[in-house]
């Protein structure tokens, strides 16, 4: 008797996809160690030159900027998303629940371009914020918000909010309310209950949300490109410039290899930091 019916049928297609994906990643690897022939998609001999070039300040700075940008985005997203997720899980009003859910989840399905474009209108020199602040008399002349790192972070926070809210809400909704009731019965007021019970128990969601926000931001291209307007250079905007303006695909490939390694390292680091917490939560 076949104890594993359909095994071959079910695994083979996925195997094919996996092989193709590995081949694509290997192609990137292979390009990253090849010399660049200007103006051509063809590549020439083996070289470490691409990786060596990355030590130049321009590129090293781009990496540092990207990590910083991702970190800032993840922190601000966490701070803003937590109250929303908490309200979503804990409100008694089903209308408010649905409203928060729809409002916070809709942007997830809008794509980066639409959301980035809306932020361009908000942040522009003649845009919404500047006009509002001028009308209110809080400013004398428009403040430059487009093409700044701050503008990019604001838009990226907006882009990563929904996934953070969902992950935090999932973690919060799995916390047994009796823990909080028990703490209250033992004399803890609302603030103490939150700090000693709710917050630590939602840690798996915080870590998952934080690392996802980090990875998404690392991968984001449209936002830094359009809002940064070339003045905020990140790994993704560099890769695109190298690939499509100078057709230096080998160098773009080596950049994306380092980008991949960096984001894997960060996610692994966060996972490691979180694992004791997750083991703990798994038993609740």
């Amino acid at each position: 008797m076949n104890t594993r019916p359909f095994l071959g049928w079910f695994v083979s297609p996925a195997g094919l996809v996996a092989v193709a994906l590995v081949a694509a990643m290997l192609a990137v690897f292979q390009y990253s160690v090849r010399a660049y022939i200007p103006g051509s998609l063809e590549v020439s001999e083996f070289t470490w030159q691409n990786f060596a070039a990355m030590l130049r300040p321009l590129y090293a700075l781009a990496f540092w900027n990207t990590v910083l940008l991702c970190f800032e985005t993840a922190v601000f997203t966490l701070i803003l998303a937590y109250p929303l997720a908490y309200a979503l899980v804990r409100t008694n009003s089903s209308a408010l629940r649905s409203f928060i859910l729809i409002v916070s989840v809709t942007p997830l399905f809008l794509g980066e371009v639409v959301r980035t474009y809306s932020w361009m209108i908000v942040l522009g020199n003649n845009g919404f914020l500047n006009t509002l602040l001028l009308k209110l008399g809080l400013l004398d002349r428009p403040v430059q918000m487009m093409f700044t790192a701050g503008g990019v972070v604001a838009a990226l926070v907006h882009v990563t909010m929904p996934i953070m809210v969902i992950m935090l809400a999932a973690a919060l909704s799995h916390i047994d309310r009796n823990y909080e009731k028990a703490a209250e019965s033992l004399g803890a007021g609302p603030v103490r209950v939150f700090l000693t019970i709710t917050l630590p128990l939602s840690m798996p969601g915080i870590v998952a949300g934080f690392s996802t926000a980090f990875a998404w931001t690392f991968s984001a291209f449209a936002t830094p490109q359009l809002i940064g307007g070339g003045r905020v250079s990140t790994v993704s905007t560099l890769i695109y410039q190298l690939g499509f303006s100078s057709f230096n695909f080998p160098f773009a490939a080596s950049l994306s290899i380092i980008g991949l390694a960096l984001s894997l390292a960060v996610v692994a680091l966060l996972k490691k930091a979180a694992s004791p917490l997750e083991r703990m939560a798994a038993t609740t």
Partner: protein
Amino acid sequence: MLMRTNQMAANTSVAGSDKARPAVQLDGVTKRFGDSIALHEAWLKIGSSEFMTLLGPSGCGKTTLLNLVAGFLEADGGEIFIEGALVTETPPHMREIGIVFQNYALFPHMSVAKNVAYGLKTRGVDKKEMARRVDDALALVKLTGFSDRKPRQLSGGQQQRVALARALVIKPKVLLLDEPFSALDKNLRGSMQVELKQIQRELGVTTIFVTHDQGEALSMSDRIAVMSAGRIRQIAAPDDIYRRPADRFVASFVGDANVLNGRLVERSGDAAVVSIGDVRASVPAASIAEVSIGGSVDVFVRPEHLSVTSRGASGSLPGTVTTQVFQGGHVDLYIDAPGSARDHILLRSPGIAALSSCPVGAEIGLSIGSDDIVAFPPGEAP
């Protein structure tokens, strides 16, 4: 009418306590969820050191009542007092209560010692005293040496002991127990019940215990409040509840009861005489005050108050054995007695003699022991 009896029951003096001020008092407390009434004007006084059980099926309002005392729910009407102080609007963390939840709710990210110390920390107890009191509490529940374990490393019984220690270490004014035994297996449950009762008596802590298990309620409580459909049906000592149930619901929910078709024969003072076929029995008159002489009544008889005699013996009802169930210490006989009862009659025969003397199909007589029989006006549902 029902409300008035509750009020009367609540206001009669508390057994075993002559203190004037009750530890917990509910004055007409009502709780609604939307249109449904979860608790309807509950009147209850619980004496200091008393073990009071709230007994009833799920959805009867017993957990609602517990949550109202704890402060997790807000009453829609009435007042709650703990040790004489009005607490109806006091938030839970100011009420000084200890709770053991059904799933224990031990904080999974804290060690056993930290769990027990939590309530002391919120009270700002200094380190030395905290350590001492945590040790004492763990010793009380026989868990000395488990301080550094995490809750997940403990068995169900041990988790329950920690939960108890955590609730008791703050010297609560009231200890609330929300079905604490339901997650334990049967053997452990029995020994934990004995231990909990010992600790409770030793410390003299006022306790409210919620359960749907009548066995637990009868064996542990000083008094029981039987609840159904958001109302307290009867408040009395366990033996009173069992022997003199106040209404049909209590009679059928607590213990097994056979409902026999009877007729009211006469009434004299507190007692009345009813007839079931040719058999006569004495019952309390109060519960059938509205029935006129000659009117039909439902007579509730416990299985152990029935016995087998020969068919046709005087003062017996005719019946036929339909099923025998061997229960170890006794034998359950299911008897068909058309005319005397709508359903099969359950008879509990001690020992194993009935296995051979009353085979299936045997035509027998049923006699009724004279004590502890109650009658209510006829009705379908309890």
